[in-house]
Every structure is written in structure tokens, then in C-alpha cells.
């Protein structure tokens, strides 16, 4: 049987956890997608990843964020001696975030792209 557990502190055998930490500290969404194939490898609270143009992808949330003040953290894969790409948020709405995968002065699609959202 499931239900609602009202509690301020969770105690595991390893120590206590403030319930608020569990609510505010958790990622509200995360995704691992392949920007070459434009496919989602794994995700949480992400409904889709849309290819816009080279290096530009829109990550759509299943449940919208309450505002656009959320924190975006990311990682992209290193692809060899010529590429240390940066995966950066370009524009944010409550329903999605547009990510830009760039290297030097250009955008490109390659490899593993990961994004997590905190709010």
C-alpha cells in the first residue's frame, strides 16, 4: 500500500536526512542524449529532445519548471585531439531549455551530451 509520508527527517542507518534536502536537493530533470543520432539514451522528467540545427537541441520537460531560475549543469564528450566542446544553455523557458554544443566559433553534433536541472 502506498500513501503520503509526512516527516521532517529521514533516518537511515548511515545518518539523518532533512526531508527538505531531499526535495530541494534533487535534480528535477536529467538526460543523456546522443547528439549525433539525436536520440535519448536515458532520462528523467524529459519528454523529448528536439534537433533544431547543428549543435542546437531543445530539451523538453515532462513537468514544467516553476520558473526559469533553474540551474543547468552539463557535460559533453571529448572527441579527440581537436575537440573540447562546451555544452551550454542558450535559452530557458519553464517548459524547455535550448542547449548549444559548441567548439571554437562553430556548433557541431557529436557524441554523448548530458544535462541535469536543479530548482
Amino acid at each position, binding site marked *: 500500500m502506498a500513501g503520503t*509520508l*509526512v516527516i521532517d527527517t529521514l533516518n537511515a542507518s548511515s545518518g539523518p536526512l532533512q526531508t527538505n534536502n531531499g526535495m530541494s536537493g534533487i*535534480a528535477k530533470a*536529467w538526460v543523456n542524449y546522443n547528439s549525433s543520432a539525436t536520440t535519448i539514451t536515458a532520462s528523467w522528467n524529459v519528454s523529448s529532445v528536439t534537433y533544431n540545427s547543428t549543435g542546437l537541441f531543445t530539451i523538453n520537460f515532462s513537468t514544467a519548471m516553476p520558473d526559469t531560475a533553474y540551474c543547468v549543469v552539463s557535460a559533453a564528450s571529448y572527441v579527440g585531439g581537436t575537440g*573540447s*566542446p562546451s555544452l551550454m544553455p542558450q535559452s530557458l523557458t519553464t517548459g524547455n531549455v535550448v542547449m548549444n554544443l559548441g567548439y571554437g566559433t562553430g556548433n557541431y553534433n557529436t557524441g*554523448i551530451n*548530458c544535462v541535469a536541472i536543479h530548482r
Partner: protein
Amino acid sequence: MAGTIVSDTLQDGSGNSTATTNAIKGSAKAWVTVNGTLSSGMTLASYGVSSVTYISSCLYQVSFSTAFTDANYSSAVSSSWDSGGNSYPMIANIANNGTYAPSTTSTYIVSRVYNNGSTGFLVNYLYAIFFR
């Protein structure tokens, strides 16, 4: 005494609540803060990480305490500026090249000068967090 509580919703005394699934799926399964300039003791703080090993050429292996069910976890990594006083902006990437690729038990992080993928520097701080 340990045990298991089964509940769909977590709520605190102020009425703030979240689905338990959110806490399970949204919680980081591992994270680590690394001093990339040290030859030993480079793990400054961590959770779910058993060790960090310097491989070569500014490539670091992060090993997990508990293996992931697959290698599809989502990573986020970041880096401080270079440690050599050059004020180079650095980029941290996850490696995905042959031997150095994400697996269930470890992943590799590489630090490079931004816009110069072939030049690496050791950095004072590397940060990584993993979700699955």
C-alpha cells in the same frame, strides 16, 4: 534498526511535498570534488565514488562504489581554471574514446583548454555528478 518505508509522497511539516519517485530518480547516485594536481588523496569529497585515479595527459578515472545498472547515466562535469597561473579557461569533458569511455563501474574525465582541444592542464578543482 533499519527497514523499508513504502510511500508514494514525501511531505515535510510545512506541507512541502514531492513524489517519492522524484527523490529516487532525481537524487545524484554519485558525485565527487577532485584536486587534479595531487598525486594521491585527490578526492576532496565524494559520494558513491570509490576512487579517482590520474591516468595521463589530464585524464582522470572516476570509479564508482556501486556499479550502475548500465552505462547510460547522465553526467555533469566542470572545472576550475588551470593550475599553472596561465589563466586559461578550461573545459572538462567526459571521455568517450575506445578504452576511455563510460562503463558501469567507472568513467573518465578530461580537462582541456577551451578552444584548444589538444592542450591539457592539471586543474585545482574538477567536479562531477552522476544521475541514473
